[in-house]
């Protein structure tokens, strides 16, 4: 009985130690993917790789001109549509880079995941409505289905990633 009490006492932090922990400098150091993913759940890893693969493929297809004829500016005569798409795909690239950078910096991804999901929702709602305005549902239904599938998948996956990150974080600290 006395031994177990001694063990408990050993785990109590002194006030000075607690203050030192609170005031410890939070250095941002890049880790490797292996280190960053080591404490994550399997589902987190799956979501992360699927999001990265879908986004990278989508961005590459856009940047090589594969989407020019299908997106709204391929149907409309408005230069603003072209500018809008350039900016949105650039933001997509920034979001992907931010996700990877935060993971490697071992930051929490909950808020970032939901921010990304809301941005993709905004892009997708306004993008689909523009395509529907130009009758793409009748003339190019395959593209509309692919477009919707990509966006809805990304929205769901980023939200799931955010939840999984919280779960990974909770399980890491409960050890």
């Amino acid at each position, binding site marked *: 009985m006395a031994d177990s009490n001694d063990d408990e006492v050993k785990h109590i932090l002194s006030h000075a130690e607690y203050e030192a922990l609170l005031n410890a400098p939070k250095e941002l150091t890049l880790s490797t993917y292996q280190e960053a993913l080591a404490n994550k759940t399997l589902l987190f890893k799956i979501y992360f790789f699927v999001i990265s693969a879908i986004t990278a493929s989508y961005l590459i297809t856009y940047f090589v001109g594969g989407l020019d004829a299908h997106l709204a500016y391929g149907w*409309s005569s408005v230069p603003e549509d072209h500018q*809008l798409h350039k*900016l*949105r795909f650039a933001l997509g690239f920034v979001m992907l880079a931010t996700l990877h950078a935060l993971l490697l910096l071992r930051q929490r991804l909950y808020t970032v995941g939901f921010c990304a999901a809301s*941005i993709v929702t905004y892009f997708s709602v306004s993008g689909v409505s523009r395509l529907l305005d130009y009758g793409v549902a009748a003339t190019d239904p395959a593209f509309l289905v692919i477009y919707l599938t990509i966006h809805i998948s990304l929205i769901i996956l980023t939200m799931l990633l955010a939840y999984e990150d919280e779960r990974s974080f909770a399980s890491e600290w409960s050890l």
Partner: protein
Amino acid sequence: MYKLCEAIVFIFLGYYAAFALQMNAIGGIPSESADAVFLARSLVDYRTIFIVCLASWYVFFRVTGKQVHTVVTISAVLAWVMFLEDLLALENAFFVPELTLAKIVQFTRPLFILGLTYMAVDAQRSKI
């Protein structure tokens, strides 16, 4: 400071809602191209829907005493995205100098963006 920023944000949102209603009443932003008019009008409509949803979400969480830091951060990020779209892609296509409400929205927007950004940073820091 947080409450002041909150007041600025909601005053701006009130002006924006009035502006969106006025835009619908006059049939959209005057432009040489019908496509451009439609693009601007549909963007104003979808943005209004997003703003109403996020503002309602925020008010509900504030009233029920739940944490608002995530919804404030999402709102701030979306506000910046919309601001960048207007500035870099649409070249302030929504600005109609003839409309007083449009002028008010245009001139108070930097205050709104700064206020919302401060709210997001403060909410994240103190996890309110």
